[in-house]
């Protein structure tokens, strides 16, 4: 399949930086909850940043690199069936695309419920908008905040297992591609080579995302610190 060892771009720089930063933030979300009780701001800011990144990724899904765009990887059941019959993808395959959407949705839900969460007595940690809603709403949000994390853990385990499976048994170096950005040239079903999105455009997306998240929380009457 590989044409003389030629390599093609699969993921542009901003997409990769986004991806691994989000990995770190999800890990740090767990760490800051488990070990950061004496510094509630640690966990709270982790949530702001995670939400900002997810909003960035949504914007990037419209104006980013070709493999990062939703239009290139959000597939219906027909494409998924075709994929099962043996197509190979440069970017997300149809199931990979669903996984990416699922992970993004769960991180978004996790960050959003966190804004309204607090410990039961509202004494130890309180999301920036918890003070604006009733105790029942805070209890509801906090409960969801725990459940969503459990669901996220399940999806992450599946996600990692599938990627390792592809690298080990399907000779599709997905993890490496997400690090280096490149894949061996091949007859891919979605596109032969990715067109990179520009860093400048990524910076604008990030700025808009940050403005939406921090501006939104402030506009809703939340205290960021």
């Amino acid at each position, binding site marked *: 399949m590989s044409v003389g060892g030629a390599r093609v771009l699969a993921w542009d720089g901003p997409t990769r930086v986004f991806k691994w930063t989000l990995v770190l933030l999800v890990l740090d979300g767990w760490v800051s909850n488990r070990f*950061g*009780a*004496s*510094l*509630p701001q640690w966990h709270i800011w982790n949530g702001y940043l995670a939400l900002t990144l997810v909003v960035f990724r949504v914007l990037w899904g419209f104006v980013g690199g070709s493999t990062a765009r939703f239009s290139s990887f959000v597939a219906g059941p027909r494409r998924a069936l075709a994929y099962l019959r043996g197509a190979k993808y440069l970017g997300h395959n149809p199931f990979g695309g669903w996984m990416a959407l699922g992970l993004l949705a769960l991180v978004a839900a996790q960050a959003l419920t966190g804004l309204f969460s607090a*410990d*039961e*007595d*509202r*004494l*130890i*940690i*309180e999301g920036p908008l918890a003070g604006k809603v009733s105790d029942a709403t805070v*209890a*509801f949000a*906090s*409960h969801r905040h*725990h459940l969503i994390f459990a669901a996220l853990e399940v999806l992450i385990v599946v996600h990692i297992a599938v990627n390792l499976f592809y690298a080990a048994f399907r000779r599709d170096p997905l993890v490496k591609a997400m690090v280096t950005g490149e894949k061996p040239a091949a007859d891919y079903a979605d596109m032969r080579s990715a067109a990179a999105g520009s860093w400048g455009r990524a910076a604008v997306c990030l700025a808009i995302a940050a403005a939406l998240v921090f501006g939104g929380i402030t506009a809703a009457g939340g*205290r960021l610190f």
Partner: protein
Amino acid sequence: MMKKFLTISILAGVAFAAGAATAQNDPIAQRKSIMKGVGDATKPVAGMLKGTEPFDNALVQKALATYIDAAKKMPSLFPADSKHGGETTARSNIWDEKPRFDGLFARLGQEAAAAQGAIKDQDSLKPNFGKVLGVCKECHDDYREKKN
């Protein structure tokens, strides 16, 4: 008339003593009452930490003294027969991991004692009181039943 008054007084006295004795022999009621005191003492300090209330070291020190007292009393209030009843939110793994559970109260006492001397103003409040609340959270995460 006098006789009736005496009877009522005696009956009331007996009832009161019985009530007090029940509370004393009811570890669930006792620990709930202690934790209620801990929560009440923490409330004003939580406001100071958020910056919605001015720093008041007397209230901070009162909260810390409440924690130290609670940390001393709480470990003995979880006898094997107090797992259920009295609407307790104590999780049953307390009894499986009693040494660690008790250790968290020991740490609560230590952190609170350290904070007593270390907290002098708003700036020293956050890091030092935060450490104490960190012990609260660690214990609640593992050993307190969530309401829903």
